[in-house]
């Protein structure tokens, strides 16, 4: 048994799957867990640049599947995190180059020697998604507080349930508290209520996510990054620690309670 295989998926593209995978990989490795991050987005390789490993690729996932190299040879060891390895996606092939059974096989070979295998799923609900989800013990669904992303997340949760991989746990990414406070963005509670699944983390909109990916050094390694802190918290929750959700919503819920209190009073007086 050994490793836990965790797939990061979303349905909609651009919500931050690769950012989440990179940051959780780094955060878990920083907690001395042995981690393999697999980029399952064949043809749109990206996890390598976010992790800063793009110049060290020799072999990729498709090379492993097609027998051009040993699994070990495709694993790139991260210099800053010696417990972290990346298996990059092939850039010049497409999703049909690998099958769900191939992914199960690769995960099986890695299970014994590592603590976590994190799989970055491509967007969509087709072959690439099925490849990424096939070996998963657990699934993390990334969404943004935005109608199209939440709708797609709901569809993914439905598909995961149908495949008996669900319901998974939710990561709400790029929350803008100032907008939530003004009533112009769905809050954490709104999204959780709509999707009815367990939430494992809320990541605030934070420019350090952009600047850190510019440098190829995920924000989870930056002690001053708010988003980095959110990712480190998710990693600890994955390890079973009881870390409360970041206080992003606190002010709002306090005001809500206050306003409820007042409206309750006025109803009593009326």
């Amino acid at each position, binding site marked *: 048994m050994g490793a836990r295989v965790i797939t990061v998926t979303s349905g909609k593209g651009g919500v931050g799957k690769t950012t989440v995978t990179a940051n959780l990989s780094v955060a878990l490795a920083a907690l001395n867990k042995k981690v393999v991050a697999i980029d399952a987005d064949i043809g749109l390789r990206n996890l390598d640049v976010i992790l800063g490993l793009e110049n060290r690729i020799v072999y990729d996932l498709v090379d492993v599947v097609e027998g051009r190299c040993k699994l070990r040879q495709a694993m790139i060891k991260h210099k800053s995190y010696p417990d972290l390895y990346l298996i990059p996606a092939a850039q010049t092939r497409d999703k049909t180059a690998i099958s769900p059974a191939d992914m199960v096989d690769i995960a099986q070979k890695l299970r014994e020697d590592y603590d976590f295998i994190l799989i970055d799923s491509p967007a969509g609900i087709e072959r690439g998604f099925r490849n990424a989800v096939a070996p998963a013990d657990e699934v993390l669904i990334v969404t943004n507080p935005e109608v199209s992303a939440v709708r797609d997340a709901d569809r993914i949760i439905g598909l995961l349930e149908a495949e008996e991989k669900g319901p998974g746990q939710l990561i709400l990414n790029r929350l803008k508290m100032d907008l939530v*406070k003004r009533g*112009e963005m769905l809050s954490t509670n709104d999204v959780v209520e709509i999707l009815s699944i367990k939430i494992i983390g809320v990541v605030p909109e934070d420019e350090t996510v952009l600047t850190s990916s510019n440098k190829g050094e995920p924000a989870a390694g930056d002690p001053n990054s708010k988003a980095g802190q959110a990712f480190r918290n998710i990693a600890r929750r994955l390890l079973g620690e009881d870390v409360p959700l970041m206080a992003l919503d606190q002010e709002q819920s306090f005001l809500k309670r206050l306003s409820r209190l007042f409206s309750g009073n006025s109803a009593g007086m009326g």
Partner: protein
Amino acid sequence: MSSLIDRLLGRSSTGSAKIAKERLQLVLVHDRLDLSPEKLKEMEEEILAVISKYVQIDRENVEITVEQRKRDSWLVADIPLAVDDSRG
């Protein structure tokens, strides 16, 4: 009062987040059922037609809705029957 507080805090009680939530909840009912609003309406009409073959329905007060409980959908039908007062 709560709207006063909302206004004092610069929050609009008709903010777009509220609209987003309502629209999402509605669209997800149909996504989850894989049934369009028109098809749902058609099904309701058929159900009522079958019941009407046996008993009279108080059509004015019929309420058929799809409720979400956690991630499960429930078809909840409140169908009052018309009592025939002329008998008895």
